[in-house]
């Protein structure tokens, strides 16, 4: 049956968004390989250009097209696939497959749904059907009922009393409040949560009914406080069925598993209970007829019986975020096996590539503890309440592996690169308990540490958090271990999972690595010393504690928080002293079998040896179980860590390309990364996969263990760039001979140092917005006054425009400084002239130190003032003349050479009409990978990340014989914004980046490409209906301006204008089909009610252009068929 020549359509999951991150790139890419291994021809559709799966070599035909029935029907018409696998593209892939079936497209072209059947999908998605089915099997489910609308009924038509009656009846049916209210057919649990008040429940039900695809809201018995577990199950057509692993949520039931800290395998469930749930999982997957991977969620509690009691909560009949995590946690490639099972293979006929001697018909055994922690965009959305609930708000996650829970947890927290959004020092014990222990939030793990730091006991913390005692005890042990450092005992802290740099900081030193796990605010002076310059209150406090540490260093012994003096032996022990005193790390294999078979795949994690050992492992001893050839040429590629706003899947794409380029050159490539969702952490991407936190210390350990000749830090976004300086220092301290390849750390630093960069630009004769840096409020005010308002202000060293703002007057500037300094206390702020009405450009280029190859020039759709990461952009530019393009090239080349760039460089430029024609300003230059690299490569066909890796490894562009290409069609990148997931967030665009992901639309005209991109991003313009305008003159022209009239007239050609006294009500009752507004409240309501909107003048004009091309052919085409000219940009 397999080994055939069938054509299989694989549908991706589209853009990265909250609830659907890079995991589907990983599973899709793995499935592509698996299907092609079996001889199938693979046709891939995905709208997300930043993915590995959309690389031309991944499938036989790649379509970067909207995941809509219209576009996919067109692909089906062209490619005539024999089958489609629905279960690999997340909820998006599943929904669109269901729609294609419902619309008859699959029947018309005789496309078989392979693997899990559609009926199963319906049976699991419709919670009522699901409950009935479980009851039929005798499986216990939480009591539940649905509130739904009749066929012809609209929410607007249901009055308040009638709604209340229905809601009350539902609450009675499930045994009273609190209940969980959920909307069916949504992603990541959007619009759901535990509700304990009637009014709130009514409001949720009303919204839910509007948003649900089938007008249903489910009300369920709350099993809050139970242990939440997930089982990953696999079944083949012969009914062989296995459990890949179970996963236990540390946070009790009531918090979405995507928001929970998750541990594999389960820790607190006895074998009886585990086996009962395992049985239930197998019974359910068999009954549903699932073929391939599937995820089943349970709630469990200890009711005094040997096995406890459980409820079946939910089934996901597809690969998922959890299956990606399970795959990385165990080494069992769920997507690969799912794809092969869909083709008809049996589990025992599929090889286990990890051991090389067993098959997929087994249940992995692991001999380590895996911990996953989510990463939340809390720093970006001041107005959103980040209390964790049944709806997801996190954008990504980090995973870690350790031999104890403590080690695993600390590695995971460190990997997440998260800074608590609270200054614990400002809280009294009651606030700490109520706001940060009882209330689940991203800060809760840190609050637990803080509680033990203050002397809370385990019982109190168990009581407040509802977290199982076994876990809480281990949080307490971590804090105890950290306290022992004060007595000169370093080993307990090291064995608990702190790095040597952290132990040194606990001993009173300044912390010098790039990211840290948790260090107590009240102990030590670990924050960097140069913060004192900013002269703010916070910095002064730190200066004071730095003095205290200085005193300790002087031998006078500083006070610990409990009044104990730090002994001289412990005081300020440097990293070298700590390293010599504590057990070193050795590397262990992830082998799927807990050591039972010798594994052949190089997938590793580090673990500290037990306390009887002292000192680092060097040479062969450092290699532990590594199966790498230490004598061959090898390079370590540092990845990007968890996905967050400003640092998305694009950096994983870049890392993977670097690895591929190195391997093509015959150089062994090792990856250090900790994001379980990604292709870079797939076991067969690299020659050595190190699932580790990204710190200088841990990367240096990998370098020593592999005896790598070089390390690449350009590809993993800010995470990898940030370790540059500390890594250079660490390698030097250890005397390790390994080069940081490509552009020097010094040059990267120069590019980020505004003053030095300014001087360089003026030497080169390149224009820049006027500006400078200020280290005090007075300096900033003076500078702003010189430049004239509005000015653009931001801290130096920023990621994704964090804390960047346009300010209009002194007051705003003062306010800003207070906040900004808290964001980045150790760096000055930058104040720049704001270039209004300029066209912004992004240029991605590769330089070998001499030649410069331009990958692409992108023109932003949004005007200056909107963060480049949030602006739609088009390649090639649509409004630049040949002279301007030539100047763009010249500026790019000059900067690349001036920075001695070797590798990638991104330049942000602005073009403004001057007296002598257009003038090109440089806004920013970053000699490293950028988020637009994959978009550029997909649009032009030039693989610039690979070229960069090759030049960094020593080749010249001339050797590689690479050439530039300009596409004939317009490719528009449009962003996806998370406002619908983040209640009360401000939906207006600004200099702070807020988007989570991107899509690409390509067509012969800009208008059509933009329309396709909007459709792909899920905010397509409505077919018709009403348009309503409400503008304030901020981002859109004010009502009364000529520009406003022009825009209004444009839209009125396609829609009927409607005006309302009560716009909010009109939006809520579905009377507005399109909103054109720059008013925060109106936009917020539109977001909540899922009403399409346009919020800036540039977007309005682009939308009008899209509308004018609405009737054009959809122009679906495989990426490789799109015409391109081999021509240089700007020449």
């Amino acid at each position, binding site marked *: 049956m397999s080994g055939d020549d069938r054509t299989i359509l694989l549908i991706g999951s589209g853009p990265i968004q909250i609830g659907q991150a890079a995991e589907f790139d990983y599973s899709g890419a793995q499935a592509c390989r698996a299907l092609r291994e079996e001889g199938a021809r693979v046709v891939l559709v995905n709208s997300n250009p930043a993915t590995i799966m959309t690389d031309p070599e991944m499938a036989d035909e790649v379509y970067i097209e909207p995941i809509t029935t219209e576009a996919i029907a067109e692909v089906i018409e062209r490619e005539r696939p024999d089958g489609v696998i629905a279960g690999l593209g997340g909820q998006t892939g599943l929904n669109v497959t269901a729609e294609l079936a419902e619309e008859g497209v699959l029947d018309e072209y005789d496309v078989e749904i392979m693997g899990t059947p559609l009926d199963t999908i319906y049976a699991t998605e419709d919670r009522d059907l699901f409950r009935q089915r479980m009851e039929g099997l005798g499986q216990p489910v939480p009591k539940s009922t649905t509130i739904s609308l009749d066929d012809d009924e609209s929410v607007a038509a249901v009055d308040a009393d009638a709604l209340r009656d229905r809601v009350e009846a539902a609450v009675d049916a499930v045994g009273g409040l609190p209940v969980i209210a959920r909307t069916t057919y949504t992603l990541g649990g959007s619009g759901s949560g535990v509700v304990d008040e009637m009014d709130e429940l009514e409001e949720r039900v009303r919204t839910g009914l509007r948003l649900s695809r089938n007008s249903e809201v489910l009300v369920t018995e709350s099993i809050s406080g139970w242990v939440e577990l997930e089982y990953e199950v696999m079944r083949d057509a*012969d*009914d*062989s069925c*296995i*459990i890949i692993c179970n996963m236990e949520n540390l946070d009790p039931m009531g918090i979405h598993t995507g928001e929970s800290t998750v541990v594999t*395998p*389960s*820790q*607190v*469930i*006895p*074998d*009886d209970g*585990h*086996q009962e749930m*395992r*049985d239930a999982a*197998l019974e359910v997957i068999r009954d549903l007829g699932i073929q391939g991977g599937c995820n089943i969620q349970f709630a469990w509690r200890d009711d005094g019986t*040997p096995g406890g009691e459980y409820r079946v909560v939910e089934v996901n009949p597809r690969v998922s975020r959890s299956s990606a995590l399970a795959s990385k946690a165990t080494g069992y490639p769920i997507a690969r096996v799912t794809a092969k099972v869909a083709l008809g293979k*049996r*589990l*025992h006929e599929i090889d286990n590539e990890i051991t090389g*001697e*067993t*098959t997929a*018909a*087994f*249940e*992995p*055994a*692991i*001999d*380590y*503890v895996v911990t996953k922690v989510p990463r939340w965009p809390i720093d970006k959305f001041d107005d959103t309440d980040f209390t964790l609930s049944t709806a997801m708000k996190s954008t990504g996650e980090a995973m870690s592996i350790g*031999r*104890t*829970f403590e080690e695993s947890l600390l590695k995971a927290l460190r990997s997440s690169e998260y800074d608590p959004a609270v200054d614990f020092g400002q809280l009294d014990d009651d606030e700490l308990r109520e706001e940060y222990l009882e209330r689940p939030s991203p800060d809760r793990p840190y609050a637990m540490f803080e509680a033990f730091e203050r002397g809370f006991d385990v019982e109190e913390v168990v009581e407040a958090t509802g977290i199982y005692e*076994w876990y809480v005890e281990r949080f307490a042990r971590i804090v105890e271990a950290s306290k022992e450092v004060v007595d000169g005992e370093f080993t307990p802290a090291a064995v608990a999972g702190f790095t040597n740099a952290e132990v040194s900081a606990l001993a009173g030193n300044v912390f010098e690595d790039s990211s840290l796990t948790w260090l107590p605010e009240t102990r030590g002076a670990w924050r960097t010393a140069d913060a004192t310059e900013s002269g703010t209150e916070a910095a002064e406090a730190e200066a004071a504690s730095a003095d205290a540490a200085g005193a300790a260093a002087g031998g006078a012994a500083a006070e610990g928080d409990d009044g104990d003096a730090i002994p001289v032996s412990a005081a300020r022990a440097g990293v070298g002293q700590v390293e010599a005193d504590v057990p070193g790390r050795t590397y*262990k294999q992830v082998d799927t*079998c*807990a*050591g*039972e*078979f*010798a594994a052949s795949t190089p997938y590793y994690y580090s673990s500290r*040896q*037990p*306390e*009887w050992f002292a000192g680092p492992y060097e040479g062969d001893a450092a290699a532990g*179980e590594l199966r790498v050839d230490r004598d061959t040429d090898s390079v370590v590629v540092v990845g990007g860590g968890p996905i967050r706003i400003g640092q998305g899947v694009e950096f994983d794409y870049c890392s993977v390309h670097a690895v591929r380029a190195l391997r093509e050159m015959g150089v062994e490539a090792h990856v250090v990364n900790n994001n379980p969702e990604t292709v870079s952490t797939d076991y067969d991407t690299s020659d050595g996969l190190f699932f580790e936190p990204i710190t200088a210390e841990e990367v240096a350990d990998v370098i020593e263990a592999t005896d790598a000749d070089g390390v690449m830090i350009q590809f993993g976004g800010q995470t990898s760039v940030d370790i540059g300086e500390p890594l250079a220092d660490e390698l030097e301290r250890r005397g390790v001979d390994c080069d940081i390849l490509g552009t020097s750390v010094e040059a990267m630093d120069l590019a980020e140092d505004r003053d030095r960069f300014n001087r360089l630009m003026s030497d080169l004769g390149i224009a820049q917005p006027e500006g400078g840096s200020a280290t005090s409020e007075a300096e900033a005010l003076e500078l702003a006054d010189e430049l004239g308002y509005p000015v653009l202000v931001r801290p130096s060293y920023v990621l994704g425009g964090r804390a960047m703002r346009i300010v209009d007057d002194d007051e705003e500037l003062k306010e800003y400084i207070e906040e900004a300094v808290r964001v980045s206390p150790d760096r000055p702020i930058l104040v720049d002239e704001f270039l209004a009405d300029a066209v912004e450009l992004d240029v991605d280029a590769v330089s070998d130190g001499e030649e410069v190859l331009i990958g692409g020039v992108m023109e932003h759709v949004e005007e200056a003032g909107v963060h480049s990461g949030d602006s739609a952009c088009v390649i090639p530019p649509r409004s630049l003349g040949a002279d301007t393009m030539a100047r763009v090239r010249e500026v790019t080349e000059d900067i690349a050479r001036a920075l001695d760039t070797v590798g990638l460089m991104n330049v942000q430029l602005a073009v403004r009409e001057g007296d002598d024609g257009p003038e090109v300003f440089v806004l920013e230059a970053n000699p490293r990978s950028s988020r637009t690299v994959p978009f550029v490569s997909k649009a032009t066909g030039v693989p610039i990340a690979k070229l960069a890796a090759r030049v960094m490894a020593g080749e010249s562009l001339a050797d590689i014989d690479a050439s530039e290409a300009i596409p004939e069609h317009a490719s528009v990148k449009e962003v996806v914004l998370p406002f619908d997931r983040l209640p009360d967030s401000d939906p207006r665009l600004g200099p702070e980046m807020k988007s989570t992901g991107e899509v690409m639309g390509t067509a012969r005209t800009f208008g059509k490409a933009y329309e396709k991109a909007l459709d792909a991003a899920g905010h397509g313009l409505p077919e018709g209906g009403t348009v309503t305008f409400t503008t304030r003159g901020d981002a859109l022209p004010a009502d009364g301006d000529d520009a406003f009239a022009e825009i209004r007239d444009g839209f009125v050609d396609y829609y009927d204008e409607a005006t309302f006294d009560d716009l909010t009500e009109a939006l809520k009752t579905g009377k507005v089909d399109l909103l054109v507004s720059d008013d925060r409240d109106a936009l917020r309501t539109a977001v909540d009610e899922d009403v399409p909107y346009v919020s800036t003048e540039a977007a309005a004009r682009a939308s009008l252009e899209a509308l004018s091309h609405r009737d054009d052919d959809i122009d679906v085409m495989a990426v490789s068929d799109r015409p391109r000219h081999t021509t240089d940009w700007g020449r």
Partner: protein
Amino acid sequence: MADAYVALADGRVFEARARAPGRTRGELVFTTAYTGYEESLTDPSYEEQVLTFSYPLIGNYGVREERFESDRVHPTAAVAREMTDDVAAWLEAEGVPAVDHLDTRELVTSVREEGAMACGIAAGPDATPEAAEEELAACKGMSDHVDIGKQVSTDESYTVEGGGEFDVALVDCGAKGSITSSLADRGADVHVLPYDATVDDVEAVDADVLFVSNGPGDPANFEAAQELVEAFAGELPLAGICLGQQIVARAFGGETEKMAFGHRGVNQPVRDLDSGKVVMTTQNHGYSVADPGSLDVTQVNVNDDTAEGLASDDESVITRQYHPEANPGPHDSLGFFDEVRDLAERTHSPVTAD
């Protein structure tokens, strides 16, 4: 400072932390199960062995007698990366030495590469590396424990009543409690007989099936049980689990052999040759059936093709190398006990209704 030492036959001595004091020795084996430590530690098949848990954290959900498989701890010692206080206290109360804070993966991979090996342990305040080495020197091979059956079997026969629908003579070579209860749950009265029961003992209970249990060590050391099987072959339906399968195979002219390090865990894949279906099984054995004699192999291990199920042509014999009774481990093969019931009922003369 370390207060426990583990000396291995390959010459290495590992430092560790004592969790339950004492000196002991045994064959070093490992299980890859991460749940079921209470069941494993009370499994008589671990007699004379030092049980290493490859999963690092043991004891997380406490210790409860309802989950025990027998009335005492059987391994001579327990080894894990980290044990909880609960499990350490239990082992100390049972007088079974226990150690943690050592690199158990290193132990596991050594056993994998070099085979199950002798080991000596010294734990507690007075422990020294030399003491562990002395224990090691005194350690016998598993096949040399010729009286191991006596150590684990019941002294006296007794009956577990399950409703009297059929009668099982269970030869206790170190039976797990779950075998008895799985049979009783299906209506059997289970007559548990000592490992050295005689033909008369079996006849006295008027059994419908003769069932040989699991147990520790080398099947060659269970001559009495083998003779029983030979005596009843063709007379009574026969069943066996684990060591029981090995004894039955030997009685039917087969051979058994010692494996390099055996199968111990709850994830061993077994394929039924008839249906093609693969199920996950619990296993705990260091010997296997190399030649099934006149029996047929009906199930095999997917990883190494070892015999997992045997049957006779006339279907009056069925055995399993794995543990269908689970505890710990998957319930995938509980149906085996239904097959045993069906086998018994074929020969059972139903009681006439009053």
